[in-house]
């Protein structure tokens, strides 16, 4: 899409349809290349995961999975027991070898000695890094790369029961570790996906010059769920077991990423002081902590503008419950009052286009099949410190088909969520 003026985007409707070929971004030159991992959509044509293990995008399934993750986050923050599925009629079929984790992005890292390259989902909303490990004592799902075998690595070691590290993984996952000669972790995600296994240490290689011996990670022996054919998950949360914390000595807890606007594009995940070098100007706001969720990155969202006009939303609508930023949630969730105001302004700006039926959590949808181009309003999110995020046109709409194109925001059901 292109910005027609400061208040509108003009989008060629055919560009909304996912491309089938990978569009490689220019390689980063010089030393910056060393600490940058390429980020691609797990199911897009740039994904290193096998073509035969991908599935056509089913937006309804993506949104359902997204809602389950959001319920889990709300559950964790409200300190209630994790039972986000107890009242849900929704079930996502987890077909062997079929990926539904379409909201997620993946990167490639090296593990072990000799190094094995593994494709991992990266997630700022969780802390534990885990991979599937042989002998897969209970279950491993089908993954694209050969399953990691710690017995073939000279640098793997288990972490003992009763150690501080074992206690910490329990705090990070919310599940008390078990002991079977060695520390056993368990992690459950919002969509009922899970991993259970040995908590151990191994050499992690991000680049030739960024090698981390004794990196603590989960060596999964019982893994099920919607991880596609990725080998596991890279936890980038705030807890001290996360990759961010474990590499703090070298990278100073600084990292950045760019997520591509299409499933056929590429982005990056970078660590250390090189952050900020890819953009002409980076605007900063505060990164907040909140005792309700120590793993999450809280941000001071204060308001929203549509077409350059600030919506009449009381600041308390945002500040009473707070806002987190999460790479693993697809659709932004707003407090009910804020979403109602956004929806109203968006609908008004889109009134010349025919509306159509809602899709899952998305209740503002249009039939754009009869248009070569469409003009949509700009949306800006306002953060503390005067920082504004003028959402890219690719972040305003989500597309099931050209006959069902929806506003890519949703509301929480309860103001206290």
């Amino acid at each position, binding site marked *: 899409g292109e910005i027609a003026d400061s208040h509108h985007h003009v989008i060629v409707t055919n560009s909304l349809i996912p491309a089938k070929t990978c569009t490689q*971004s220019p390689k980063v030159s010089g030393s910056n290349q060393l600490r940058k991992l390429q980020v691609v959509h797990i199911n897009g044509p740039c994904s290193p995961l096998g073509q035969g293990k991908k599935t056509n995008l089913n937006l309804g399934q993506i949104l359902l999975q*997204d809602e389950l993750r*959001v319920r889990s*986050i*709300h559950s964790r*923050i409200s300190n209630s027991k994790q039972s986000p599925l107890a009242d849900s009629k929704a079930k996502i079929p987890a077909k062997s070898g079929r990926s539904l984790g379409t909201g997620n*992005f993946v990167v490639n890292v090296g593990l072990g000695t000799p190094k094995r390259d593994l494709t991992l989902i990266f997630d*700022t909303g969780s802390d534990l890094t885990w991979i599937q490990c042989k002998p897969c004592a209970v279950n491993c799902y089908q993954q694209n790369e050969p399953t990691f075998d710690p017995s073939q690595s000279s640098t793997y070691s288990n972490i003992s029961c009763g150690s501080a590290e074992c206690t910490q993984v329990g705090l990070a996952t919310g599940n008390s570790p078990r002991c079977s000669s060695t520390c056993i972790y368990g992690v459950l995600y919002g969509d009922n996906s899970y991993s259970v296994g040995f908590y151990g240490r191994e050499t992690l290689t991000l680049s030739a010059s960024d090698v981390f011996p004794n990196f603590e990670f989960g060596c999964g022996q019982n893994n099920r769920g919607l991880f596609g054919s990725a080998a596991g998950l890279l936890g980038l949360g*705030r807890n001290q077991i996360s990759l*961010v914390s474990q590499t703090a000595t070298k990278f*100073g*807890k*600084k990292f*950045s*990423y*760019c*997520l*591509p*606007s299409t499933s056929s594009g*590429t*982005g*990056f995940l970078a660590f250390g002081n090189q*952050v*900020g070098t*890819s*953009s*002409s*100007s*980076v*605007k*900063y*706001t*505060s*990164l907040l902590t909140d005792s309700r*969720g120590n793993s999450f*990155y*809280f*941000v001071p*969202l204060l308001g929203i503008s549509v077409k350059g006009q600030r919506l009449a939303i009381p600041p308390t609508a945002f500040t009473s*419950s*707070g*806002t*987190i*930023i*999460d*790479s693993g949630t*697809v*659709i*932004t969730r*707003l*407090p009910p009052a*804020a979403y109602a105001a956004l929806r109203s302004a968006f609908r008004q700006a889109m009134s010349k286009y025919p509306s159509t039926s809602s899709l899952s959590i998305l209740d503002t949808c249009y039939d754009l099949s009869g248009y070569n181009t469409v003009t949509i309003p700009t949306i800006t*999110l306002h953060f503390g410190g005067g920082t504004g*995020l*003028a959402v*890219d046109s*690719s*972040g305003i709409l989500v597309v099931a088909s050209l006959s069902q194109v929806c506003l890519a*925001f949703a509301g*929480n059901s309860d103001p206290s969520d």
Partner: protein
Amino acid sequence: VAILGNKQQQTFEVVYDVTGGKLGFGAGGCS
């Protein structure tokens, strides 16, 4: 809580300076 999802983060360089307590957004971060 409200949640800023990845759809709205796309194309930005999202910079986490955890020690410094700040989060940045850089337009055109993927280019």
